[in-house]
């Protein structure tokens, strides 16, 4: 552990915080192209955040301190999560503080604060959103944990950088267990990030919205932080997927060259991931809220299948 590791660590966090809105912009752009619309600028999310920061915050009369604190906590947990995930390098000092299971716990913390804040003002939408968000959450979390079990059994550790290191040391073979879990993980990613089969990020139709319902009472800087945190969440999930399923090329030291290669490779992987996400969102229709459990139960079963296949074949 030395000063270079810390620099790489801070670089990784800064990269995540800075690049997260770009990823959202890229997904939106891809989706617009696929749907034959003229695409917005890739930098649009930034402009949105900047605009929101400059506005006056309007807060409901009976909002408590929890309501005002929640955006900072959610943003803070997402930045911490970004620090835990080995996105560009595996020798990160902070990743010792939390392994993959703790990461799941961290994401759950953000979800709970988000839901509590939504219930704070006491409107029908907020509570509705909170209960739907928690429903999606409790269905997605076990699936995500089983995914993590499979990769930790494969690599004999739950520490994410070691998982990435050990999996990237393997040759490029698609093991059946990892294939199943990759499908499960993608489904969890869609559900947890309010993407189309489960939720529509572009809707404000009251009957269907989940994530937007949670944010309905937020404005200005609080909303900006929440949006930024949501972008970071997507970025984090994408980086978990990259680190676990396509880790090849990640820097295992802190040589500048390998780091540069790693950053470029991460960018390319995320470009493909974002395009894939846009494709999924374009090709599928939104499910009714009560079909969401089936969707996530399928994800859970895929993950369990991956686990069983791993234990049976021992790959």
């Amino acid at each position: 552990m030395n000063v270079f590791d810390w620099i790489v660590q801070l670089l990784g966090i800064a990269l995540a915080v800075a690049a997260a809105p770009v990823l959202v912009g890229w997904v939106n752009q891809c989706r617009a192209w696929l749907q034959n619309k003229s695409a917005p600028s890739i930098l649009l999310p930034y402009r949105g955040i900047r605009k929101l920061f400059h506005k006056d915050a309007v807060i409901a009369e009976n909002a408590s301190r929890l309501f005002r604190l929640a955006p900072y906590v959610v943003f803070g947990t997402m930045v911490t999560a970004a620090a835990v995930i080995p996105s560009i390098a595996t020798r990160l000092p902070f990743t010792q503080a939390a392994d993959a299971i703790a990461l799941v716990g961290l994401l759950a913390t953000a979800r709970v604060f988000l839901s509590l804040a939504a219930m704070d003002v006491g409107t029908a939408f907020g509570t509705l959103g909170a209960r739907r968000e928690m429903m999606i959450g409790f269905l997605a979390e076990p699936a995500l944990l089983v995914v993590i079990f499979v990769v930790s059994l494969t690599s004999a550790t739950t520490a994410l950088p070691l998982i990435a290191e050990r999996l990237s040391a393997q040759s490029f073979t698609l093991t059946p267990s990892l294939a199943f879990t990759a499908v499960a993980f993608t489904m969890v990613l869609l559900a947890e990030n309010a993407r189309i089969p489960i939720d529509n990020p572009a809707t404000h139709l009251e009957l269907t919205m989940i994530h937007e319902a949670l944010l309905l009472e937020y404005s200005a800087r609080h909303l900006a932080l929440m949006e930024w945190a949501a972008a970071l969440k997507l970025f984090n999930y994408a980086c978990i997927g990259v680190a676990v399923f396509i880790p090849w090329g990640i820097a295992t030291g802190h040589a500048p060259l390998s780091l540069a290669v790693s950053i470029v490779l991460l960018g390319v992987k995320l470009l493909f991931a974002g395009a894939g996400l846009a494709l999924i969102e374009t090709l599928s229709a939104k499910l009714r809220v009560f079909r969401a459990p089936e969707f996530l139960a399928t994800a859970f079963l895929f993950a369990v299948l991956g686990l069983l296949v791993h234990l049976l074949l021992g790959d």
Partner: protein
Amino acid sequence: MNHGFNSPLTLSLLLLTAWSLVALTGLLRPLSIAFVGRTLFPLGALIGAVLAVVAAVSLYEPAEQIVLPIGLPDLPAHLRLDGLSGVFLILLGATSAGISIFAAGYFRRGEGTAPGLLCLQYHLFLASMGFVLLADDAYAFMLAWETMALSSYFLVTTQHRIPEIREAGFLYLLIAHLGAIAILLSFGVLQGGSWHFTFDAMRAAHLNFHWATIAFCLALIGFGAKAGLVPLHVWLPEAHPAAPSPVSALMSGVMLKTALYGMIRVSFDLLGQPVWWWGLLPLSLGLFSALYGVVFAAAQTDMKRLLAYSSIENIGILFTGLGLAIVFAGAGMRAPAALTLIAVLYHAMNHAFMKSLLFLGTGAVLHATGQRSLGHLGGLIHRMPWVAWLTLIGVLAIAGLPPLNGFVSEWLLLQSFLFAYKVPHPFINMLLPLGAALLALAAALAGYVMVKFFGVIFLGQPREPALKRAHDASFAERLGLAWLALGCVLLGFLPTHVISLFSVVTRQLDLGGLPASDAPWWLLVPIPERQSSYAPLVFFAVIAVVVVLSIIGVRRFYHQRIRRSPAWDCGFGGLNGRMQDTAEGFGQPIRHLFQPFFAIARELPGPLDTHPKYRLEIGDRIWRALYQPLGTLVRRVADKVAWLQQGRIATYLLYSFVTLVVLLALML
């Protein structure tokens, strides 16, 4: 061995005696709230805190035994303080300190039983739990166990003028005694033909495989009944809401753990080496209880019932872990067994703190509003900020969120589940990891339940106008809550210290401690070769730093203007507290998803109703399928037997005569 006056065992005995004395002192001025509340309960709390310290010190000393010539002639009481007893004594002392301080400000006039009597029952309850943990022979154990059951029965029925509470108390007493019979029988088997009922004799006895299995199953039934393991859980959701909140806290936080203590004592200590497949019983029952409890908790509308079901969930988690530890120990995997047992002890300690905290929180709300039903609460964070923020710590802890304590034990348990594939038995080693998946589901659902619990009570708008007059808790109550919240935080932040205490237990139970690692004190690395680590302090520090930096950053670079306005009402106007989601509404997705669990009776209004009525009752299928037929059967048999009671002296004399004749005939 240290037999002096200052040995931990002697000191603990003195402290337990002090509790009994406090109990009796309550009778001096039975009607004085001031005397009981301001003097006796704080004194009890102090004794609890000292007991915890003494028990913690005892962990660094070898186990010690003492024989006291009390009780029946030729049946002296054997007492022993070892690591396992020590850990549970810490739990008892530390949690009860917070609960007693809270109780000092909680009990008021007009709560049924007179305060002095309540003080007697309460402290007797505490002392008997202590003696359960120290007992080293079956007689002393059963005596303390029964005292515990009886004193808690009277505490549950504090408001004995309400018929429902009497019923709940009776149900509790009934199941407690069924359990006690099973435990008694289990001890009867464990002595193994030596007819010595000391635990030492039981350790020395060599049972053959069948008798050992019978003893284990009986113990599981007996202690499972006390712990509230499904299907013996039915008393729990009735008794907890009936009892005053500090009593619920004590029962849920501490008493249920004595059952866990008994189970660990029997399976790892008295039985010696457990057989691996025994573990599958508590494991599967535990998983089912965890899921069952949490699903029912999500559907409840009474805040204390919700917490009671959540206790069933946590007991389920504890027994799951215990089962896994038995499987590991039986399969000869000592290191994973030690890790799992430590996770179980850790979770027991955590649950004692968090559940007590939550129960006391509901007590404060109950006093401030007089409401137990979630449908009549809401928005209390404005009126009762102390209670709300301290309860929030308990809520986040029990939802298993890092960096608080609930997460640590969950993390340890999941880590130990990752060893399960190494169990050298085909199929089982594949099924066991699925247990981890179910455990994760239960833990995630606990988050749902806790958001509902906190959100509906403390957040939103008040659902009743009367709530605007709610007041915050008194100083003593806040102190009690703060003590328990502090426990949750410390248990979460200092896992390495807690674990080094607990590894005394696993070493004494011959499982060995955790492998040594050269990690610094703030970094938890339970299994060095796996390199999984967790550092809650660093973790929390980073979140805190980011939060503070972002607050400062936003202020520095932008502005901090805030405008208050009414909540957005979609332009219709007239938004009020009753338009919020209800507790029933919040549980609706769960009812929908887990329909087979529930027996739902629903009455929905039709479109033409002039007086629309909505009624929803959620029943327990196990109650209907198992207990109701049993109850009907017992009643029917009792009706038949009642025929014997003709009510005439002549008939009864005839019975005596016939009995005598029959006995004489048999003798000859």
